[in-house]
């Protein structure tokens, strides 16, 4: 069981409290540095407790400083008192919060002892300078729990005899920072005091954190259930953040070589250049930028100039995307385009996730393990499932950016809060507001790369839709549309709101369109044959695919039409319907197609989606006209 010692350094400014697992190292360090005096406050096996007390002491020191009081022996005695009170309060509150009756009385949750531990090993720092540098380099730019860090060092074949001592040394010299996995704090209020908990890794609050008696620290402990899949973040697990200090210097210059033979359309070129300007920081101190490009505008290609700009400065780039399949698809593509850069795919089961790189393509959850590592971070599909309304992931992504770095959002349907923050609106003479095509924080690409307009969905309201479906009655608009598409040899996506409705819808359609019985299939997220079915659809073996929202993005099938049955359902929001409509007409050979939204009553989302699509078409037209005029 490790113990953490809390002490105050008095001497040269600033007067601060420190937490250390090995006091000897700190003693030596401060002696070398400035010869300050250190006063031990006490020690506890709970890391979170030590940090919470440290917070209190800082508060006290600040107050004292404001009064211009000297910090003397008396103050130290007072601080010891404060610490003791803190422990007592936490004990009581923890006992109240922890409902499990394990028979422990409330005073025993956190141990607290004053003075130095007797049997501290004499050796201060065993590792050589080379080892220290090596550890520093391996850990640079990462935010890891203790276990993860041990594993990482192991995979790199680094065995250090005194890891805590070494890390403490790094912390003191300002090269690293350590925190408890879960932070613990007593919040005081006039009504009642409460125990505040926060996961330092994912930022989740109390509702996601479970209290437990822990056998690792033997103290009252808590762990975060939100990021449990990536290892347990606990009160007693050190969470280590090491910022990447410098650019990887060994290989600058060539990594940014772009081997891409494709060509931009005029609009694409302008948009891509604006993004590049942002990365090069020609527009003031913006750190966030949104590329809003409609479905099928060629978003990935738009990134290339920005990535080149970052690489040429010798910096690292991260492309974060919500799903693993996208990571796997994108990584080889990026590698082909940047042949001299080291590209790695980082996802849960990837083997190269700990390797050094120039460009990392990662799933969003893996981004949580990075700390100020990348100069340019690109977030693909910000509106998609894991990011949307999820402060945890936004926080993780923001943490992966270096100080002074850039954050680039990429979306076809940016959520409202991003639009508000980054997209400027302008008002026309008639008072109708529309989106500005660009600003210092965004660029809008309203047209597709082939220059054709987006297909505008048709909405039809069929009252009693569910009953008609259940009774197997013909729904004329749907039937006509499907028949026309299939007769013309096109493929059709039929979207339904819920998994249970996939087989039901499939059965209904098989009865309704008996000629195409064989060419129909249904797929949903938990379907074991999901990949094969989607493959068959791509290869045109399946003509009609009934699906849930899982195929709403990423799947491109030339010559396809879309029907959404039950478009009023809450799973289909504006963004999702725009994405679904965006499946149609993506290839230049076949830019037109039909999109049909069937709703059982009038709902807001389909209408809003149609409005958004028409607006984009108008903007695209405006842009085209303007260009022709020029």
């Amino acid at each position, binding site marked *: 069981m490790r113990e953490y010692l809390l002490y105050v350094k008095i001497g040269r400014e600033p007067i601060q409290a420190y937490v250390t697992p090995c006091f000897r190292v700190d003693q030596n360090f401060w002696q070398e540095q400035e010869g300050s005096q250190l006063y031990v406050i006490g020690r506890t096996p709970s890391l979170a407790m030590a940090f919470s007390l440290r917070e209190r002491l800082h508060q006290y020191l600040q107050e004292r400083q404001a009064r211009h009081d000297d910090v003397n022996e008396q103050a130290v005695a007072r601080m010891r008192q404060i610490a003791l009170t803190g422990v007592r309060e936490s004990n009581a509150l923890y006992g109240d919060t922890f409902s499990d009756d394990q028979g422990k009385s409330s005073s025993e949750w956190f141990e607290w002892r004053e003075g130095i531990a007797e049997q501290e090993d004499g050796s201060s720092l065993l590792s050589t300078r080379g080892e220290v540098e090596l550890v520093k380099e391996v850990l640079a730019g990462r935010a890891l729990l203790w276990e993860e860090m041990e594993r990482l060092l192991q995979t790199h074949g680094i065995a250090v005899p005194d890891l805590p001592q070494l890390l403490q040394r790094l912390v003191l010299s300002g090269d690293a920072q350590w925190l408890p996995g879960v932070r613990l704090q007593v919040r005081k209020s006039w009504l009642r005091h409460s125990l505040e908990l926060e996961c330092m890794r994912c930022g989740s609050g109390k509702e996601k954190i*479970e209290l437990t008696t822990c*056998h690792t620290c033997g103290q009252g402990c808590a*762990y975060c259930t939100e990021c449990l899949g990536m290892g347990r973040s606990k009160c007693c697990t050190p969470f280590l953040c090491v910022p990447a200090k410098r650019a990887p210097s060994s290989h600058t210059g060539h990594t940014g070589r772009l081997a891409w033979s494709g060509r931009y359309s005029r609009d694409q070129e302008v948009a891509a250049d604006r993004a590049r300007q942002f990365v090069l920081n020609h527009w003031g101190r913006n750190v966030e930028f949104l590329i809003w490009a409609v479905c099928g505008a060629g978003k990935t290609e738009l990134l290339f100039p920005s990535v080149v700009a970052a690489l040429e400065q010798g910096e690292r780039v991260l492309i974060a995307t919500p799903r693993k399949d996208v990571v796997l698809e994108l990584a080889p593509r990026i590698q082909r385009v940047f042949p001299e850069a080291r590209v790695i795919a980082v996802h849960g089961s990837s083997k190269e996730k700990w390797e050094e790189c120039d460009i990392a393509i990662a799933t969003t959850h893996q981004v949580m393990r990075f700390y100020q590592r990348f100069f340019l971070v690109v977030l693909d599909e910000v509106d998609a499932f894991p990011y949307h309304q999820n402060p945890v992931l936004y926080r993780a992504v923001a943490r992966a950016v270096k100080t002074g770095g850039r954050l680039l959002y990429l979306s076809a349907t940016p959520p409202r809060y991003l639009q508000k923050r980054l997209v400027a609106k302008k008002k026309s003479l008639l008072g109708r507001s529309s989106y500005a095509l660009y600003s210092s924080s965004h660029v809008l690409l309203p047209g597709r790369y082939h220059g054709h307009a987006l297909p505008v969905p048709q909405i039809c309201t069929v009252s009693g839709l569910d009953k008609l479906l259940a009774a197997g009655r013909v729904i004329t608009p749907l039937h006509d549309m499907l028949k026309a598409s299939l007769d013309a040899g096109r493929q059709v996506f039929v979207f339904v709101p819920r998994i249970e409705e996939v087989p039901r819808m499939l059965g209904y359609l098989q009865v309704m369109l008996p000629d195409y019985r064989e060419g129909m299939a249904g797929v949903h997220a938990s379907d074991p044959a999901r990949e094969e079915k989607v493959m068959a659809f791509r290869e045109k073996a399946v003509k009609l695919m009934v699906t849930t929202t899982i195929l709403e993005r990423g799947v491109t099938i030339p010559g396809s039409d879309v029907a959404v049955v039950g478009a009023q359902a809450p799973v289909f929001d504006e963004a999702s319907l725009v994405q679904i409509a965006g499946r149609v007409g993506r290839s230049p050979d076949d830019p037109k197609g039909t999109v049909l939204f069937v709703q059982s009553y009038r709902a807001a989302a389909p209408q809003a989606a149609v409005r958004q699509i028409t607006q984009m078409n108008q903007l695209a037209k405006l842009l085209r006209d303007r260009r022709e005029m020029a």
Partner: protein
Amino acid sequence: MSQRGCVRCGIRAAARNQREAVVRSWAVRLSGRTSYAHMYRLVDQLPLCAGCLEEMPVIGERICEQCGRSWDHKGQQNLLESGALRCRDCRAIGGNALVGNRGLLLYNEWGKDLLGLYKYRGDERLADFFGKLLTLAIYRYFRSGQFDYLVAVPLHAKRLSERGFNQMERVAGQLSRAIGVPVQDALTRTKETAKLSQQTGREVRIHSMQDAFAWKGEAAHPKKPSRILLLDDIYTTGSTLRACAQAIHKDETVKSYIWSLTIFR
């Protein structure tokens, strides 16, 4: 169902009436020694949705008298001969401190991930779920009041500190609260053994488990022979549980009556 939804698939509100039917059918099948109403309540409490509940691989009625292995399970038929009450493995072992074992579920894909999530990932919230499963198992196989106390199989101190919690201790706590039988922390693990998955072969396993446990000094032996129920997550070869039973018997003058109950068999 709990607020968290189904522990296996995470679905929150599944079709209520559909689940009702599944719960009833399980309650009918499992209510042997206890009443239907009681079993119904136990099954209904499980935080599982209709689909997952239906697929729950509960071991059938035909089992080996000693180790609780299912006779109907595929691939194990060859180990059993018709007419025999015990399976071949159990006959090979012969007399033992451990009277017998019962397991509730077959160890297959259904539960593997759940147990992994609980043990290795450390999602302690699942203790509640496994506790409920064991409660159900107790009422299925035993009579209430058949045991004096429960003993969870301990972890080695080093493993315990790595993991932060003893998975069976948590489950035993839940179970004890449900059935009102006290838990006694009576055993310690004296030998550090490799992980189950890293040991190959029955012989190796049995050998490595020898004298791996010891009776804790401070837990005083009761005067009269007590009836003990050992709890573990899974019975594979049974060597862990037999070693525990032996450790209990070793220091006793009056031999206890020991059964074991596992979640998976």
